[in-house]
């Protein structure tokens, strides 16, 4: 049991590339922390630094009250699950799980108890004598999990463990991982680029971009109050609609209190098709360009009738002027139809012109 604290952690490669630009995160004992961000944002590098597989060039990594910057991976009392599982191909499932315990000189009887217990929990008991190549993807994933839990480490590290599985298995394994972590109550750090995985797993969510932390917090709190336009567009699917407040049409609707804001964001689900204009809210006339009916809901892709530049925001960027609206699955406007959508004041997200600061109206 341990908390993990990152204090101003930096990583600069020889050659000057700065992969991690000063990260501060505090994961309390037993918490499930998810690092999420687009590829290349440094989340995997950060995880590997916690594991000890990458050197730390600045700041401190603290596991259970001990600064581990200079400590070998083996001595950090962590276990890691890799994206490609990294099972030892020449060893049986049993030996894969026992390997780490044998290296630590544990008695064979104790090893047997632990491996069999882990195998029982992960439903691998019938496969202990098999080699990894004789297992399916999901089974290999469970062996990798088993290898981590038999060690009874202070911290679990997960590096995109589900991204090699098919969609259906990914969802069931996601639930399994969460249940297992709750039961074992081991501090965990989990890296993913999938915002849905991040939202569902995390006690504490760390959104990263370009080697920096954009926002840390409870997943729902982040969803409700994204701190930057990056977080706003990265968390939530489909992404939040972001618009410049410069056009008079929008500025006049927002009123004087929001004059500092350069960007206004509205989630697709916060729009409603209506002729009314809520006070202080935003109403937009749209031409329907495309619709996606997925059953429970319908996504309407509309273009603004008035000329306007949509604020560029990565990722999930839309062509300028395009707005996504989510409406109940029972409704479906015709393509080419002129509609009017509106969002109430409380559902607006206001940001400074550079998108780096959230403004509370």
């Amino acid at each position: 049991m341990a908390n993990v604290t990152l204090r101003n952690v930096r990583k600069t490669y020889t050659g000057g590339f700065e992969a991690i630009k000063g990260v501060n995160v505090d994961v309390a004992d037993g918490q499930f922390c998810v690092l999420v961000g687009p590829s290349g944002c440094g989340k995997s590098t950060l995880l590997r630094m916690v594991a000890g597989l990458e050197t730390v060039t600045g700041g401190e990594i603290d596991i259970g009250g001990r600064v581990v910057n200079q400590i070998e991976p083996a001595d950090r009392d962590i276990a890691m699950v890799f994206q490609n599982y990294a099972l030892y191909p020449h060893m049986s499932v049993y030996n894969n799980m026992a390997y780490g315990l044998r290296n630590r000189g544990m008695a064979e009887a104790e090893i047997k108890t632990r491996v069999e217990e882990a195998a029982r929990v992960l439903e691998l008991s019938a496969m202990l004598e098999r080699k990894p190549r004789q297992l399916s993807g999901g089974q290999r994933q469970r062996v990798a999990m088993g290898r981590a839990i038999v060690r009874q480490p202070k911290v679990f590290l997960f590096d995109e463990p589900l991204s090699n599985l098919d969609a259906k298995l990914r969802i069931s394994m996601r639930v399994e991982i969460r249940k297992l972590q709750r039961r074992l109550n081991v501090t965990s750090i989990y890296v993913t680029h999938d915002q849905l995985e991040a939202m569902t797993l995390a006690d504490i969510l760390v959104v990263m971009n370009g080697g920096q932390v954009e926002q840390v917090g409870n997943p729902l709190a982040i969803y409700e109050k994204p701190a930057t336009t990056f977080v706003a567009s990265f968390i939530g699917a489909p992404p939040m609609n972001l618009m410049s407040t410069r056009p008079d049409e929008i500025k006049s609707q927002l009123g004087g209190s929001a004059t500092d804001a350069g960007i206004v964001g509205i989630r697709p689900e916060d729009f409603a098709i209506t002729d009314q204009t809520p006070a202080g809210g935003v109403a937009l006339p749209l031409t329907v360009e495309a619709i996606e009916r997925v059953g429970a809901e319908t996504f309407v892709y509309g273009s603004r009738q008035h000329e306007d530049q949509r604020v560029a925001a990565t990722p999930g960027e839309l062509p300028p002027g395009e707005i996504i609206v989510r409406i109940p699955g029972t409704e479906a406007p015709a393509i080419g139809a002129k509609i009017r959508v509106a969002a109430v004041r409380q559902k607006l997200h206001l940001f400074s012109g550079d998108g780096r600061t959230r403004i509370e109206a």
Partner: protein
Amino acid sequence: MQKQAIFQSKLLPYALVAPQLAIVLIFFYWPALQAVIQSFLLQDAFGLSTTFVWFDNYIELFRDPAYFEAIVRTFFFSFAIAISSLSFALLLAVMADKPLRGSMLYRTLLIWPYAVAPPVVGVLWIFMLHPSLGVVSRYLRAAGVDWNPLLDGNQAAALIILAAAWKQISYNFLFFLAGLQAIPRSVFEAAAIDGARPMRRFWTVTFPLLSPTIFFLLVVNIVYAFFDTFGIIDTMTRGGPGTSTVTLVYKVYSDGLLGGNLGSSAAQSVILMIMVIVLTGIQFRFVERKVTY
């Protein structure tokens, strides 16, 4: 699914493979057949008459203690060359597999010796280790070693093994490096997190995962030591002093071309041929057993 090329004419495919077939037939099958026939013949001392003697040449060979010595010597040389070359190449490959500055240069330099022809290798080492010309010999003698491979059979044998192993390191290094790079990095990282120290990691993870490569190279190295060392032996020691560096392949040459005993020489080459076939068979049989990641 097998890919099949479609030809308009039935003759065209045969015409296309004909040049390659001709080379194989003229340079491999024809001489091999000649050797088999020759091995059943006995020529008189002046080459005037030839008699068909069935297996007399073979029987003679197996009664000859010198032939047995050559067999034992060849096996000893082969294993010595294979083991020393393999272990040194593996050591270098493991070191070169790390992300080092200038690793490309290091790798390129390590591959160079493979481009050197065996006789040149022999000359190169002679220049360094010749008792009167050699640069290294001077230091050896200064260090109190009675270094004279021209007189001392064991030293001559060591010299041959050294030169032959050195040349083969490049080849082995290449295969080991490729083998190491085929293993996902995360497997080593998992082992590091699992508490395995570098030495233990090597013996419990790297070595078993490389075992198909090691086995393949062992066979290749033995074949190399059996046959391709001819150039090295011929330039360095000519089988001497005495017969202390005469291997099977050198004996084929010295008995046949220098000694004029064509029948016995042919019989020896037929035996060598059978050995190669067996070795290649073993290799094909086991090389399929691959490790999957």
